[in-house]
């Protein structure tokens, strides 16, 4: 990463008369848009930049030098599973045939594309222990919403329209309650025990109180503290006995690859983040993909379109069809077409590259890495919950609180040393949460180097706290004024010109 800020906006590079494209030039068109009535046309041309091609190439290349990705260095961002994004997957997803395919082509011209889609559904069903999977959702939160719609659709179909309360542990990701609210469900918070796991006694009481209003329960397992919920099967039994369904938030699925499956733990519906567990790049915030799996009996609720396989007569070959019809069972549709197909190709390539023999080691290696970091940092950093963690570990800031150095300061100081920061101030159960997820991609040497730096920062906090409190020092910009940004919002270049 370049330590100097590049800083220019593309609008500031613009000069009237420059172009960055080559398009056919129809000198004598039979039709022009001047045929459209004037009031259907815009009054003035849009103020887009006017740049030659090299200017654009340099501009965005320079911008990229002020950015940090997994390929640049260690990215221990908790709950985000920043594993290596294999290069071959990018090559595969750039396939020119598929890039030029329209989603409404006749099915006989896209059998290969549909076969991949179908196979990916089957592979994800096997890995999660679910019966059927939809690949339509575009992101994790989109998957959550879709999964909750499945639950609501199921209750509706049973005539149980009063089931509108969703139980969610207080340690849950913020998307869980937000998705429930968008889905028209009322959130009921379940308390955690001091060890970070679900308070089963409180859950029992809530289930008794709410009775036939319970739609279900959303859980992450391992939970957001990286701890496996030991009473998961009891919890599932209790929720099922109350008539609710169990929803699995797949954000932390990476820990369990090879060890156990949501379906076997008693979950009825789950989402999977292809951009976490299956190594598709996060792209600075998307595109992701958030498939949803359901147990047998719920598959008719899944959104359309669905891709189905049927046996061709007199052969073993499959023919793939698109079921895009509204029917009485489906929850409806949650996107225009099939979902983020290009992302699916990357996950497909990743899964096949691992194969049965390697995919089962993902969870154990990720878990080993997290426990290794946890064990080696608990001298300087406060470990609020002892015992085994899974794929990530959570500290509550420095052990020595007398220095005044906060989790934010530590995060910012890590940037100086060439690391991305861990997730900070989440989960909300601790004031100074620092959540580290190393993933199975990282070597012992990388972890050792990171651990050394974490120790060095702890030492700096003791010796020279001001150095840490004013970090970062070597990044392209210093700490940003968030308050100014929110108080006087400047959200476009045009607003900036006026400000």
């Amino acid at each position, binding site marked *: 990463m370049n330590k100097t800020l590049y*800083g220019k906006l*593309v609008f500031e590079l613009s000069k009237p008369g420059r172009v*960055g*494209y080559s*398009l056919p*030039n*129809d000198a004598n068109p*039979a039709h022009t848009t001047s*045929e*459209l009535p004037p009031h*259907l046309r815009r009054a003035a041309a*849009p103020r*887009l930049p006017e740049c030659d091609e090299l200017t*654009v190439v340099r501009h965005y*290349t320079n911008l*990229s030098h*002020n950015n940090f990705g*997994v390929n640049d260095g260690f990215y221990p961002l908790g709950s985000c599973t920043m594993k*290596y994004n294999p290069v071959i997957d990018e090559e595969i997803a750039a396939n020119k045939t598929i890039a030029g*395919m329209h989603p*409404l082509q006749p099915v006989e011209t*896209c*059998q*290969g594309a549909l076969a991949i889609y179908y196979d990916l559904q089957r592979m994800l069903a*096997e890995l999660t222990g679910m019966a059927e999977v939809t690949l339509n959702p575009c*992101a994790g939160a*989109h998957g959550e919403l879709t999964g909750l719609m499945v639950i609501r659709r199921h209750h509706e179909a049973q005539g149980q329209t009063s089931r509108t309360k969703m139980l969610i542990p207080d340690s849950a990701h913020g*998307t869980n*309650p937000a998705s429930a*609210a968008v889905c*028209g469900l009322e959130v009921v918070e379940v308390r955690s025990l001091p060890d970070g796991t679900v308070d089963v006694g409180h859950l029992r009481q809530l289930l008794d109180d709410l009775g036939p209003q319970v739609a279900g329960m959303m859980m992450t397992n391992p939970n957001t503290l990286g701890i496996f919920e030991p009473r998961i099967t009891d919890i599932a039994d209790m929720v099922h006995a109350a008539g609710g369904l169990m929803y699995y938030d797949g954000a932390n699925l990476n820990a369990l690859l090879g060890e156990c499956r949501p379906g076997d733990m008693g979950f009825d519906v789950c989402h999977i983040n292809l951009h976490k567990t299956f190594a598709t790049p996060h*792209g*600075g915030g*998307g595109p992701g993909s958030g498939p949803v799996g359901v147990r047998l009996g719920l598959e008719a609720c899944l*959104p359309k379109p669905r891709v189905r396989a049927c046996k061709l007569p007199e052969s073993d070959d499959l023919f793939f069809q698109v079921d895009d019809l509204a029917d009485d069972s489906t*929850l409806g549709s949650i996107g*225009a077409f*099939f979902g983020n*197909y*290009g*992302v699916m190709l990357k996950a497909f390539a990743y899964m*096949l*590259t691992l194969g*049965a023999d*390697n995919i*089962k080691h993902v969870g*154990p*290696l990720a878990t*080993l890495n997290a426990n290794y970091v946890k*064990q080696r940092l608990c001298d300087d950093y406060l470990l609020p919950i002892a015992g*085994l963690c899974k794929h990530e570990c959570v500290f509550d800031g420095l052990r020595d609180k007398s220095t005044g150095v906060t989790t934010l300061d530590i*995060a910012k100081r890590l940037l100086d040393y060439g690391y*991305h*920061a861990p997730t900070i101030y989440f989960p909300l159960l601790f004031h100074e949460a620092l959540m580290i997820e190393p993933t199975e*991609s990282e070597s012992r040497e*990388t972890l050792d180097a990171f651990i050394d730096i974490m120790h060095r920062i702890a030492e700096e906090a003791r010796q020279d706290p001001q150095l840490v409190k004013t970090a970062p020092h070597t990044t392209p910009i210093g700490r*940003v004024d968030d308050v100014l*940004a*929110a108080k006087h*919002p400047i959200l476009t270049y045009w607003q900036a010109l006026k400000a």
Partner: protein
Amino acid sequence: MEPFKYFPHTADDLQAMLHTVGAASLADLFADVPEGVRLSDGYADFPEAWTDSDLRRFFDSIDTSWDTRRLVCFAGAGCYDHYSPAVAQNIVARSEFLTSYTPYQAEISQGTLHYIFEYQSMIAELTGLDISNASMYDGATATAEAVMMAWNNAKRPRSVCVSATVDPRMRRVVDTYAHYHGIDVTTLPATAEGTTDRAALDAALAQGGVAGLVVQQPNYYGIVEDFTGLADALHAQKGLFIINANPSDLGILRTPAEWGADIAVGEGQSLGIPMTFGGPGVGFMACTDKLMRKLPGRIVGQTLDSRGQRCFVLTLQAREQHIRRQKATSNICSNQSLMALYATVYLALMGPSGLRQVGELSYAMAHTLADRLVATGHFRLSYPTQPFFNEFCVDFSGDIDALRSYCAERGYLAGVKVNSATIMFCATEQRTPQEVDELVDIINDYIKEKEAKA
């Protein structure tokens, strides 16, 4: 454990690390997982590993061995075959952008934050509205989010109106979100001319409590609708006017802001993003300043750093799920960042003149195709009195599925089927006069073969 290229752990590493954590084996790390839910020996039904060469072989031959073909595309309906610049494809492949996360750590994420700010500026400029968010999943979900925004903005909402001239694939997503969110959607029928039914809107408005109206420009049938008076009618009862627009056409067409819209949404795939079987694209959403704190999704703002440098940061986060949880404006917690970068680089290359030329060429090619189809004597414009941009509907008396299959076998995607009697064709600047000739020839061949058989 055999060595594997994505696992750096050697046998020595494993032993040393297990020793450090006080476990005898990897299995010990899962001692807290109840026996009954553990997989004893991996997955029963999962494929064996493929090498890179296996993957390449499969994908290199996907067109021949798997009946998967790239057709000459004369279809649209929400997914368009526009020119995708090599520069845009190259920039989005840069690993600094590709392999980064949501830009939480502004000090090492200026690249992402900076291009999102440019993206927001360009979307605001194209739509004519004040502000834009950092992008959304797709055009359909952006439309659904706009409907929720209108509903939540109203004091005593009774319904949100959606014109039946809006793409049915978008409408069914709106209907799905609305159903679960508890929003009543009133679908306004289309007129015989394929436009929004003003009388039906007036009837709905007379009932009161219309929180918003969604229309599309150009509409699903390709028609450039006249929205004169709609904004005033909506605003008279404090409803929000929502236009779903195709941003590629906004180099030429009247902007949502000029029509008086409060919110503009749409699918940005037409801004240089390859079709890729329908995704990923990018949803956009822009609105007036007044609605700023109700806007869902990520937003990037300009600010200063501790050294006094202009820089960019995620802002107005008090709207968002990680702060507000169930009280957030939406559950969306990501955007389609990389696809927003695609659109940004595309627009930076195109500029006002390029975008205009794309529009002119698409318009000219589509109108030429319409003329040629009508001249065959077998097609009739479905809405002959209405202006269209680069997509249009024709009535066809034959079997539309059979015609499309016939053309597909010969390498052409002959529009999409709107209903049993109507096909919708589309042309972009990517289509050549020769391709128009060839498509018309193939269609003529089909009709001749049919007539010969009959």
